[in-house]
């Protein structure tokens, strides 16, 4: 498995659990790197059952949302599944405002999300 700078990767059965290193996902270069690492999971490592755990995330910008949307497309193109969990209320509000809570399958916590795969 490749080394990642923006992501912490673990496995739960056949699901890859992804946690974010940065509490604030807003620096453009970091977001670029974050996107590349997420896409690498799908396209190079063929990890297509992904759970993104947002426990550590306090802030994210629209550029980060763009990377998540692109990731979702890539996962779907590989017939995989993508779920999100542990999103703080203020971050969830960002998903709700942009209606991305309808695009993504968002669960309360990691256990709920893993049970839903």
């Amino acid at each position, binding site marked *: 498995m490749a080394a990642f700078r923006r992501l912490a990767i673990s496995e739960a059965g056949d699901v890859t659990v992804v946690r974010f290193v940065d509490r604030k996902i807003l*620096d453009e270069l970091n977001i670029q790197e974050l996107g590349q690492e997420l896409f690498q999971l799908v396209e190079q490592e063929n990890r297509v059952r992904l759970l993104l755990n947002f426990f550590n995330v306090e*802030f994210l910008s*629209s550029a980060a949302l763009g*990377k998540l*949307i692109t990731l979702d497309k890539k996962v779907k193109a590989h017939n995989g599944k993508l779920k999100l969990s542990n999103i703080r209320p*203020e971050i969830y509000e960002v998903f709700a*405002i*942009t209606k991305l809570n309808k*695009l993504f399958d968002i669960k309360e916590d990691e256990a709920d999300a893993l049970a839903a795969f």
Partner: protein
Amino acid sequence: MYHSGSASANSDVRLHLAVLNQTDRTHTNNTIMSLSDSECWSVNLTLPSVRGAGKDFINNLLEELRRNAWNDHEVFGVHLAVEEAVVNAIKHGNCLDESKQVQICCRLWKDRLWIEIIDEGCGFNPDEVPDCTQIENLEIPNGRGIMLMRSFMSKVEYSSAGNGVILEKLRGQS
């Protein structure tokens, strides 16, 4: 000339800016200006068109908001909106062209925040940005910054040339 598509112009802000343009702004860059009695904090600055150039300004602004007892949700919303606006000006307005600059004028009162951000780009029409909340547009990766600005600020107005934006937040309002 600014327009939001919904809210009317705020005349006292216009007057304030007009006075500012005639006096302090002509000779003040990157300095905190003297404040009138009603203002808590005020700054005019010029940013280069490089990624991350707005970081110090935004951190200082957030610190001032907290110092003036704005709550966490308000600070979060202002952070998101201003971050999006500054990135838009640097990246989409000035296209990261280092020969161009971004002008920021910021005023903070106890219960009100007012920020003008002007880039040197050719401008855009915010009405032409697709509505990303429509089902058919949900998977478009771009265009959510403007929506977030409008949601978290009390008022967002774009200049008629499309290269300037005024953000206003009234404390206690969405």
